[in-house]
């Protein structure tokens, strides 16, 4: 097995009395997409910015390919921050030219334009881009040094579903080039689709780690049956399975779908609006932290 790209040991970050990262240990293997999930203020961005070299740890150690992280390593990173404003009045093409000028051997301009689908917006003022266009430009800026490690900090936050899926497609193209990706996200579907390995972070600590399927298998053996509240109201008392009131819906947790359906039929509950879904990362997160991810 090859040496991890990052080895993180005892990493902490304090701001005065506030502990943002409280001693985390993890490795980032070569060529995977590592996802950091957690609620706002969990310490995801601080952790990632310490890996990027943007912030200095209070204590602990980060090894990049076996040696302490230094400024030279940063030339091999591509970074897309959570929110980035670019220089006023520059067009998309001029932004590319500016940032290409900052690296010793940037990717060819045309390659970046093709990779991130920027051809039609090259002459547009960067302040007048849509959310999806802006993220594609920022991704191009993160890729222009052909990085060995690509950091993406909530890259699809605020995008509409179509733009988000387009962005995922671009990331999947990059993954096929066997680059190492570190992704923080609020979107469980995004994490499940893109990440090979996930760290769930809360209060500056890692509370779960593994592949998405490993994590789900380790914590859940059941599935969820969903019924509209209007159908199920007042008819589920005494049910032998765990029932959760989720606003418009009622969720029934069960590891025996057949038995549950038989019991529902026995109570004359109409099943034409019944939905069955497997457990998700969001369920796992709620189970582990008791918090909404987007809270």
């Amino acid at each position, binding site marked *: 097995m090859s040496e991890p790209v990052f080895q993180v040991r005892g990493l902490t970050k304090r701001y005065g009395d506030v502990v943002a990262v409280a001693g985390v240990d993890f490795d980032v293997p070569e060529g995977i997409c590592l996802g950091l999930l957690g609620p706002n203020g969990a310490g995801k961005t601080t952790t990632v910015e310490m890996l990027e070299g943007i912030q200095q740890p209070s204590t602990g150690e980060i090894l990049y390919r076996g040696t302490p992280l230094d400024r030279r390593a940063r030339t091999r990173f591509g970074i897309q921050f959570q929110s980035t404003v670019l220089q006023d009045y520059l067009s998309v093409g001029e932004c590319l030219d500016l940032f290409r*000028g900052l690296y010793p051997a940037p990717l060819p301009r045309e390659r970046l334009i093709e990779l991130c689908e920027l051809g039609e917006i090259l002459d547009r003022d960067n302040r007048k881009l849509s959310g999806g266009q802006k993220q594609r430009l920022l991704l191009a800026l993160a890729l222009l040094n052909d990085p060995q490690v690509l950091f993406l900090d909530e890259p699809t936050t605020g995008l509409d579903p179509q733009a988000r899926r387009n962005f995922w497609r671009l990331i999947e193209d990059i993954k096929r080039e066997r680059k190492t990706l570190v992704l923080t996200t609020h979107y469980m579907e995004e994490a499940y689709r893109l990440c090979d390995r996930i760290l769930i972070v809360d209060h500056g600590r890692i509370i779960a780690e593994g592949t998405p399927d490993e994590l789900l298998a380790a914590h859940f053996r059941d599935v969820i049956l969903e019924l509209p509240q209007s159908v199920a109201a007042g008819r589920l008392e005494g049910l032998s399975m765990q029932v959760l009131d989720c606003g418009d819906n009622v969720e029934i947790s069960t590891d025996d779908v057949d038995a549950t359906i038989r019991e529902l039929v026995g109570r004359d509950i109409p099943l034409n609006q019944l939905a069955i879904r497997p457990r998700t990362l969001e369920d796992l997160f709620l189970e582990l932290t008791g918090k909404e991810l987007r809270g």
Partner: protein
Amino acid sequence: MRRFLAVMHARNIEFLRDRSSLGWNVAFPVLLIFGLWAMFADGGRPLYKAGVLTTATKIEKSIHPFLDTRYTQFIPYADRQAAIDLVSGHELDILVEFGPGRTRYWVNTTSPKGYALERFLLATGDDPKEAVPVVGTRTRYIDWLIPGILGMNMMFSCLFGIGYVVVRYRKNGYLKRLHATPLTAFEYLSAQVVSRLGLVLTITTVLFLACVWLLDLRMLGSGLLLLLTAALGSTALIALGLTVAARVASEELAGGLLNLITWPMMLMSGVWFSMEGTSVLFQKVALIFPLTHALTAARAVMLDGAGLADIWVELVVLAGMSAGLMLLSAALFRWKTD
């Protein structure tokens, strides 16, 4: 060098496309200069100014036929020495005292208008006339003021144009994004300095040439020496702006700090009036401002024809301020808010 050029080029584009800032940088001094031009232009005024020594408040034209000379303003003076000083400074073209049996007059030997009025005086009346030559060079207020106005414009452009922009980019995260590249703080800051310096010198040179053309601005010394003075003065002011902006993350705070610096500098560096009549303490405090040294050197070059040997102290002080403030700003510089 490549990174430096890339950042400088981008900054130039931003400045040129930000029409409101560019317009203000050009329009403000133009408006000031045209306003002053309107105030001090000679159109419609008498061509000559002659002083008449008399205790009367009104001059009787019947005293002497010279007083019938057209296009000449005759002004009564009771204080002989004060009037002679005005002749010395070319503010009066001639001073005449009509005495019993003879006329004395004071005329500046370097004044063309004085020469013309002397010819007129000698051609009128039969009385004997006694000439008293006066020496002294002419200094119009506008000649003295223009360097101050151009310097003030440089000050605002250098301090606010740099300080405010750096703080805004820190606040909105653009500097953080640049920090994620191999760009160093010194490369970024020096690109800002050279970009702003080029723009400020270009604008100031154009305005200066316009003043020379429109106002017949006095320029006795070397243009290159004046350019060197402007370059060093601007560099020191830009470095001061960068020092203020090195850590600040709030535009409001930056604005307050910049105002705190610019207003005393504007009042005490001799933009509008000379500090010679003020207290020694004020004159000493004024020496901490780069603009004081820049204006002293610029006026010496323009008005007195001073050479490098005369203003080297000011230039060394400006170079020292530039280097010191640049190093300080690089040491204090932060890419992001904490």
